């Protein structure tokens, strides 16, 4: 059904190529350019001239070189074998490329994204003769010990299942089932293509009510995100964006992780690649790699492929969502994606908007984040996609366009603070500048754990806000000039920062903190504040409370008490309370 068009190159300007002769080519069709048949995409049509962005290094390309097109849109191949794999921005398998051409990526390489020879054990779940519709689950494949891959009837297909294979081993090339549709016979395989720029359909969208548990205290307790939500992590260099993204990819309780390294460092992807097969998920005892798909278009790989990499990633996420899974997408960094847009738009001669970015930047960002959400999928099951995008503002200045536009489309904003990062306080998420809009939605989930959750959280948050206000005063007059009660607030805020907010992602116990443990720690700190405050108001000196070993020791609870033994925190706090009560206010006041 595909028509083959041929034309020729007339202008080469970096990765942007103009070609003529491709009559009938459509927007966003793939074109193969020049003798190496480099992959490109039609991004603009101007009379007889097609403007193509080339996804590979095109040095040496000449006017007069041939261009051909099958008039197909840029697509990803979706099927078993995506899990634990690593792709470049246009879904070329990096492992396969390294087998063919060694350590460097040569241009013009074309490999199937999925292993065409691998046999998958397929188990059919429906009988021939059944009426099926888009989204019907036809069968299952054990893709990895963590992921049961479900084969669904593709969107747009309705009719009677006239044939399906018996349980057994099949490759993605084999015919698996046939559906007699009104328009003719449809033959399905284990894998199918889907255009990257087109969101996959679902039945309807739902309100997300369950938090994505990340095991990071400042996120789960203070700025939680719902499953199906959107969040941005803006921060200047060295504030720990990638570290935070890695921690989320490792410990959040999504079923599938899609990690998109977009225009970032090569070694960071290598870190994920070496770490994830070794790291064991406590919840199921399996390596984290068994639920992870990676897209790596590092900063030195071609810029146009960086632009498409986030669509490739989110399309794969939608594919697993449609099977009924909870998927988390980490996009690091959306600023590099926006810069790719800027670079390409400037080569096209577009009139720039703010800071050289194209006027459609905001629209593109909105479209991307809109692909997140909790939905009722075509199969009837619920599935969700959570998107967490890192933003790299130039000079750490949040007023720049990408941060500003992103903050309009996300509902969680985890602002990274340079001061915290400098003091090696990680995660360096600021409790002053960050916000979340999911608090009311996910409140009930936490209340199942403890009715008082929101009150406790807000009380502790108020101590931190009060501390922030007092710090302004302290900067002018010093802390000794404050009344004892306020000095005590400063002391408690410091304890909260060190014992709760700061979290060591390399400590075996502290790297992941269960919701139960978070709650116990939080309540313990609040008890310290309330009991201590009473004593201070009765005349006890702040330094006498601070001098108690049991008080100073709270800082170590996070790494000394394992998640399963969270009840030991209660014992500890009880002991602390006893010792506090035993303190007699000395006559001299402070």
């Amino acid at each position, binding site marked *: 059904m595909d028509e083959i068009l041929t034309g020729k190159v*007339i*202008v*080469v*300007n970096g990765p942007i190529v103009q070609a003529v002769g491709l009559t009938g080519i459509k927007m966003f069709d793939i074109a193969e350019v020049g003798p190496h048949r480099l992959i490109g995409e039609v991004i603009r049509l101007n009379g007889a001239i097609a403007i193509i962005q080339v996804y590979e*290094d095109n*040095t*040496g*390309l*000449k*006017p*007069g070189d041939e261009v051909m097109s099958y008039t197909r849109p840029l697509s990803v191949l979706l099927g078993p074998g995506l899990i634990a794999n*690593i792709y470049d921005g246009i879904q070329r398998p*990096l*492992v396969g*490329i390294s087998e063919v051409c060694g*350590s*460097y*990526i040569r241009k013009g390489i074309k490999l199937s994204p999925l292993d065409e020879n691998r046999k998958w054990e397929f188990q059919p779940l429906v009988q021939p003769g059944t009426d099926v519709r888009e989204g019907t689950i036809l069968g299952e494949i054990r893709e990895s010990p963590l992921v049961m891959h479900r084969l669904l009837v593709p969107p747009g297909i309705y009719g009677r299942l006239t044939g399906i294979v018996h349980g057994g081993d099949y490759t993605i090339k084999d015919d698996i089932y046939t559906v007699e549709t009104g328009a003719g016979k449809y033959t399905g395989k284990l894998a199918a293509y889907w255009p990257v720029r087109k969101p996959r359909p679902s039945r309807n969208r739902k309100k997300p009510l369950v938090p994505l548990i990340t095991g990071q205290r400042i996120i789960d307790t203070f700025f939680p995100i719902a499953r199906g939500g959107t969040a941005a992590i803006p921060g*200047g*260099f*060295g504030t720990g964006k990638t570290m935070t993204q890695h921690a989320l990819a490792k410990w959040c309780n999504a079923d599938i992780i899609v990690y998109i*390294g977009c*225009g970032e*460092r*090569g*070694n960071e*992807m*290598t*870190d994920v*690649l*070496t770490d994830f097969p070794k790291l064991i998920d406590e919840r199921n005892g399996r390596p984290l790699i068994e639920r992870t798909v990676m897209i*790596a278009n*590092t*900063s*030195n*790989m071609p*810029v146009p492929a960086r632009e498409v990499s986030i669509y490739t990633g989110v399309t794969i996420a939608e594919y697993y969502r449609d099977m009924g899974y909870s998927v988390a997408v980490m996009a690091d960094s959306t600023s*590099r994606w926006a*810069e790719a847009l*800027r670079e390409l738009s*400037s080569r096209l001669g577009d009139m*720039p908007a703010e800071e*050289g970015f194209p006027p459609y930047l905001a629209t593109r960002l909105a479209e991307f984040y809109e692909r997140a959400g909790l939905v009722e999928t075509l199969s009837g099951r619920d599935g969700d996609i959570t998107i967490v995008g890192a933003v790299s503002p*130039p*000079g*750490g*200045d949040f007023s720049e366009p990408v941060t500003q536009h992103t903050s309009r489309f996300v509902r969680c904003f985890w602002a990274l603070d340079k*001061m915290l990062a*400098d*003091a*090696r*306080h990680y995660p360096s998420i600021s409790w002053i500048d960050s916000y979340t809009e999911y608090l009311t939605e996910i409140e009930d989930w936490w209340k199942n754990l403890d009715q008082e959750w929101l009150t406790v959280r807000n009380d502790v948050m108020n101590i931190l806000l009060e501390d922030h206000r007092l710090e302004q005063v302290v900067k*002018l*007059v*010093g*802390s*000794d*000039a404050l009344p004892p009660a306020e000095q005590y607030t400063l002391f408690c805020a410091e304890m909260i920062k060190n014992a709760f907010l700061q979290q060591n992602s*390399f400590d075996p116990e502290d790297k992941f903190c269960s919701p139960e443990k978070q709650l116990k720690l939080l309540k313990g700190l609040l008890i310290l504040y309330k009991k201590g405050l009473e004593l201070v108001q009765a005349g006890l000196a702040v330094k006498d409370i601070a001098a108690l070993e049991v008080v100073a020791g709270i800082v*170590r609870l996070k790494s000394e008490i394992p998640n399963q033994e969270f009840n030991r925190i209660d014992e500890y706090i009880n002991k602390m309370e006893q010792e506090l009560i035993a303190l007699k206010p000395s006559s001299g006041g402070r």
Partner: protein
Amino acid sequence: MSAEIEYTNLAGISGPLIFVDGVRGVGYGDIVEIRGTSDEIRIGQTLEVDEQRAVVQVFEGTSGLSVRGTRVTFVGRALEIPVDRNMLGRVFDGLGRPIDGAPQVITDRMMNVNGLPINPWSREYPRDFIQTGISAIDGMNTLIRGQKLPIFSGSGLPHNRIAAQIARQAKILTAEEEFTVIFAAMGVKFDVARFFIDSLEESGVLTHSAIFLSLADAPSIERLVTPKTALTLAEYLAFEEGMHVLVILTDMTNYCEALRELSSSRGEIPSRKGYPGYLYSDLASIYERAGRLKGGRGSITQMPILTMPSDDISHPVPDLTGYITEGQIVLERELFNKGIYPPIAGLPSLSRLMKDGIGAGRTRKDHGQVAAQLFASYAKVKRIRSLAAIVGEEELSGLDKIYLKFGTAFEEVFLRQDYLENRSIEQTLEIGWKMLSLLPRDELYRIAREDIQRYYLPQKEAM
């Protein structure tokens, strides 16, 4: 091939660019030979081609070229340089041509200076600790073999001395291996180049170093190709000959300015401070040429040096560099003015690869926590100092005064060391503990109890 046709006369000249009309069969990125009236050959590269016109950047600059009479040949391939082991001990210009008076390099191995992107799958994650002998680096911002760790400096600060000290002292603890040093100078003064050459000579590594010079008097456009030529040789030596190469690139700010000059003469839409929107991608194409490969013996460690215009770390050059490199060593004028060498700023400096290259079996188990505690405590010193500036030191609490004492000791004893002083990692950690022991035990909340038991010094010894 038609590529060998010689074209005479130019359609125009603008800054470092020439425009040639009526060309056929010219590829994007092709190398161009340009002969002016003097018959001297200049090298250029096509930036844009269409059916009539080619836009060519001339690396040696366009001064002395005329629209009439200039002859242009399109060579039909990208810029290549010869690479060989025998290039060690030699001095080249920015395009890889010898300028030390010795004969041409004889080899049939030619490599494209643009290199190819390394497949992230094929990278080996860098984990080998390099001992530089400088406490501020080894203790708190550890350099790892295969890392790209720039020095962010300001004019007048001793970045060159620090880089030279690292080149001299750097060693791997587990094996007696030597670094090969490749030094590329872009737009710096002759004295700076001379200083490096002399210090490499003094430490006896000059014979296995290669030097690429595009000094301040060379055309600015040549600077654009200099780091690429240097890194091409580095890639050959590291990944084909299995050597460990330390590449020092100075000064990247000059490189970026040359890029801005080129972009502006092409009439491109500027982004911040007039730098082109693709500055990030362009810098990445240089910095990402560092690392290690799976199954390969060699490595490329990069140490780019850049001066921050008016010490501004948010200037596009340091800012975008920091987003690409794996950390940064920041030099601080305040420390320098106090007479402290090396003036490595305590807080904004960072090594991202440190976490996996240190600890038990690599340096010492307590290393990571000691570094974290030093950072945290020194951050507190900075806060107390700004408070003391307002309320006066006498008004501070007793604990705050202890912190101030710690801060001074940290700068004077831990950071400060001699240009020729080479500290082992044990010495560095020992000094670190001495500093931390000035603080009460309870303040060391980033360190495990057992390590405090073991290393914390009684008050007398800490003083």
